Structures are given as structure tokens and as C-alpha cells.
């Protein structure tokens, strides 16, 4: 299997199929900041403008619908580049303008650290040795 930074759970994939039937092709942008931040926001393609300040993490392959692109701001990606994320679905009540909220559900990110093999395959620059001074911007 080819290494990837993103995945989707079956429950989230079902929700994406159901949302795509109503709203057409979809995309994600990971949010930061307060309230409903630190969560993935799902929009119909074209609603949210991505730009030079964003990183395209990849496309989710969900059977039956168009690939779902996943973006994150480049500044936030700096901290996430060794993280594999899986988009999951939980019961919830809205947040921002994300398209699933009226369904009583909320997309959520599950994270794990990428393995060294995945990091090598994805060509991500190596991490600092343990105990090294962390990067200060």
C-alpha cells in the first residue's frame, strides 16, 4: 500500500456520500483557533477559497463520489507534518459553517504519528532527534 497522510473512517465516508448527494463535490479545510477550531471543516467545492497559505494534504478516496481534497494552512502544517490524520464522525452540534452540522453529526480528526518508513516514503524532511532543541519560528 502506498503511504498517505490522510484516511477516513467508514462512518465518515458514509456521511460524505450522503452529503455529496445533497451538495455535490466536497472538500475539507482543517481549522485552528477557538470554539470549534482544531476541527476539520467540510464544504461544497467552491465555497471556501484555498490559496498560497494552504497545503494540500491529499485526496480522500471515498467510493461513489469525487475525491475529497483535504487542506490545512501551511503554518499549521509545520506542526502536523509527521502526523497521520483520519477523519472520523461523532455525534455533535454544529461548528462554523461545516456542511454536516445540520445532520447532528460532526467530523473529527483522529491522529497518529507517521512511522519512519512512511516519513521516508512521503519524502518529509527528517524529524529532530529526540531531545534536540525544538524549532522556534
Amino acid at each position, binding site marked *: 500500500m502506498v503511504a498517505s497522510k490522510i484516511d477516513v473512517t467508514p462512518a465518515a465516508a458514509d456521511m460524505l456520500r450522503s452529503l455529496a448527494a445533497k451538495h455535490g463535490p466536497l472538500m475539507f479545510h482543517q481549522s485552528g*483557533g477557538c*470554539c470549534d*477550531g*482544531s476541527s476539520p471543516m467540510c464544504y461544497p467545492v467552491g465555497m471556501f477559497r484555498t490559496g498560497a497559505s494552504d497545503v494540500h494534504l491529499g485526496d480522500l478516496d471515498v467510493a461513489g463520489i469525487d475525491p475529497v481534497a483535504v487542506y490545512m494552512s501551511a503554518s499549521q502544517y509545520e506542526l502536523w507534518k509527521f502526523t497521520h490524520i483520519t477523519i472520523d464522525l461523532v455525534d455533535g452540534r454544529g461548528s462554523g459553517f461545516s456542511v454536516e452540522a445540520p445532520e447532528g453529526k460532526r467530523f473529527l480528526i483522529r491522529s497518529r504519528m507517521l512511522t519512519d518508513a512512511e516519513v521516508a516514503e512521503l519524502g518529509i524532511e527528517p524529524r529532530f532527534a529526540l531531545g534536540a532543541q525544538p524549532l*522556534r519560528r
Partner: protein
Amino acid sequence: MTMYADAPAEKAEETPPAAGPQVYAAPGAEGSVVSYKPRYDHFIGGRYVPPAEGQYFDDITPVTGKPFTEMARGTAKDVDAAVEAGWKAFPSWSRTSPAERALMLTRIADRMEANLEAIAVAETWENGKPVRETLAADIPLAIDHFRYFAGALRAQEGGVSEIDHDTIAYHFHEPLGVVGQIIPWNFPILMATWKLAPALAAGNCVVLKPAEQTPASIHLLLDLIKDLIPAGVLNIVNGFGFEAGAPLASHPRIRKIAFTGETTTGRLIMQYASENLIPVTLELGGKSPNIFFEDVAREHDAFYEKAQEGFSFFALNQGEVCTCPSRALVAKSIYDGFVGDGVERVKRIKQGNPLDVSTMIGAQASNDQLEKILSYMDIGTQGGAKLLTGGERADLGGDLTGGYYVQPTIFEGTNDMRIFQEEIFGPVLALTSFDGFDDAISIANDTLYGLGAGVWSRDGSQLYRAGRAIEAGRVWCNTYHQYPAHAAFGGYKQSGIGRENHKMMLDHYQQTKNLLVSYAEGPMGFF
């Protein structure tokens, strides 16, 4: 409680509010001081209007996880009607005298004060926060905020500039028109007040969308004050962000949009505003550092206790505060002792029924919030942080088992970890040490955000230098979590645009009209 006045915090812990029971009955239950209606429609043009699409959604109390009322589910048609109602009211409202608008704001404040206990209990039931906070902070602050903007408006002056002896520039403040406001769920009434008071004072009409997690308490308040507000001046459309928030933010007939929330929606709001060429104010949160310098632990006195409370403040309002001091930076030389005492103090935080006046930490506002916090505890552990206390969901038993409770949690780690860089919006502290002043400031500023910060020291000069060096809009020095009106509040960096809580917010809701007048008798001489 320290959020309102600078009273010693210990007093709040010893003395419950003078009036009222020890544990409030749930709204609507026998003996309760307040009841929610079974359903709330939109409030448009001075009356309640059912949703155009006829749909409603359940409003859930996080105290038990059960629904307690239902709300109109707004759509673009409802937003259109509300904006229309606002414009209908605007010509007369915009011409009212400052005295008249100020009087309305003070009357709203008086009405709230007379009903403080009922509003506070209702707010706790919908949001999950402890009633001691709503009684002592949220609602008193909201009351004072209306009074502040009544006063600020009366004291506001335009300008007269003498260009030359015969040419004068007059500067008048004029309202913008109909403005949109999208309110967060962490302080539903207080955050609505932060936006409403200046907008109404300035003579605007408002279309407000409460958060879908906490739409009802604003309507409960509205019920108490609606006779004081001319029809159409304040319109409230409930609903979800995608269905009601986006149509409001992108509406071609609003003249300004104000939002408190997170960065992706903040960008979307700016995107819409760019399409309509209207101004925005945004408050988008942070990852606020709380710095404890070495001299804090020089003596174990009242000041040390105060600093220990400051260390524990990450748990206030369940951590659901945009300025939550969610990163503690403790000087290496005092680290073990100070942190040891701090962890013990955090373990003594009383978690329980939010309606019990002795409860210090209540429920997270929603299930998805709870799930997100738990997912970050997982990220903390996986990222190599060391758990010092907490780390799990709390089951409080009985009716509260279905509620959304999280143990106050402390992780020790380094500032490059995700839990140090991302806002969790829960009672989760990311703790690290620093070695000297420069290291403290470097760690404090190593964040995408810049909303709040705390600095603790017995040395006034050090407080000042640290306060000026931190890139954040609000730096609390030897205090934290005070939100008085007349102290500007807003963010640097990715934390937003604009300053609330201060008379300068009037400017964000006003146009400047310049009349340039010549009193010269003769022609200019060009033609």
C-alpha cells in the same frame, strides 16, 4: 470572583452568593427560578416568526446530555426577512438621539440586573458552566457592558478641524446600517452583549445569529427586554452555520459582519466580506501563554497563592475561553516546587453539577467538544507529553452521567508538540519550563496566535518588559481572566481583527462623515 472586580479570589470560594439556594433546580423543574419555553422561533421585526422552511432542531443541555427546548432552524429566507426588517427600522433608529439609545441600553441593564439569578441559571443550563460563574461573572459583566456603552456613547465627541481660518472640517459619527453578528457558544449572553451593546449604541440595526449549540438563553434574555427595543432594531435568526450563518455573512445588504470563532470560518467570513466590500471584526482565539518568573516563589505568601490560582485558571469555564491560559511556562529554578503545588491545587478543583453554587468546573458545551478534547488527550500522549493529572472523561453519576464532563488535565512537554500549538478549548494545560527572560518570551511568542497572555512576577520592571515583548493583544500582569469593560480585547497575528470591550469598538460600528465647509466670502480664484 476575580473576573468582575479585583476582589481576593479566596472570598469567592468561601462565600456562596448571598441570596439563592445552594443547588438550583433545573429550569422548568419544580422550584426553579426560571423556565425555558418549549420552542423558540426567530425574532424578526419585533415579533416571533416561525422558520420559512418550517423546521426545528433540539437544544441539548450539556449538564445531562438531554434536549430541553427546540429552536427554529433558519435558512436564507429567514435571514433575508431579518435583514429587510433591520433596514425598515434603520431610518428612524439611526436618527434617535444618543441620549435615547443610551437610555435604552441602561434600561436593558436594569432589567437584566432585576432578573440576574434567572438569567444566570438559564445560561448555566444551556452552556454547562458553573452557576457561580454566571452569577458572579457572565451576567454581571454583560449588565455592566450595556451601561458602559451607554456612557461611552454619551461621552463620544466628533471632531472639528481648522484647515484654515475660513475652512473647517467637521467629523460626525454615523451608524453603518444593518450589521450581522455571529455569536459563539462559550459565553452565549456575554459574547452577544459584547457585540450588541456597541452596535446598538452606534445606531445600527442588528441581525444576530446565536451559536447552534447555545441559541436559547439569548431568547430567554430577549423575552425580558424586547419591549425596550424598537421593532426591527434587533433581529435574531437561529440555525446552523451552513444554513443560516453563511447566508448572513454573505448577505449583500449587510454593512458589516462580526464573528467570534475559529480560523477557517474566520477566513470564510473575510472571503464573503471581500465579495461585498464590507468591514469585518474577528476574534479567533489563541494558545495563550501564562509565564511564571522565578521571583513568584520567593515567598509563600498571598501573592504566591494568587499566582497558583493563575496557574489553575486554564480550567475556568472548562477551558472554553478564547484566552484560556492553556500553556504554562514556569521558570526552571522554581519548577518542581511551583508545579507540585499547582498540580495539587488543580486536583482540588471541585467538579460537579453546574447548578450547585460550590461547583468550580462544569460540563463541556457539547458532545463534539467533549470528543475533540478527548482526541487531544490522545494526541498529547502519542506526542510524548507526560500526563501529570486528569486525562479522562469524568462520570459524575446519576442524571449527570450523560453530561459532557472532563477532568482538569495537565500535560508536561515541549512547545513544539501539537498540544502546545493547537487550541483544545478544554480544561487541558500544556506545561513547560524556561531558562531566563529571553527563553520565556521566545516560547511565549512561538505560536500562530496572539490573543491573551499572563505574566507573573514581583518585579514591576520585569512585568512591563515581558508584557511589551509578548505578541498578544491582552497581557494580564499578575492577574488573569478579568474582562472588565473599558479594557480593549482583541488579537495579534492569527487571533483576529478589531478590539472589543472598549469604546474603540464604537468606531468599528460607525462611519466617519466629514463635512468640509468653506466660510470664505469670495471664489477660490481658479475659474
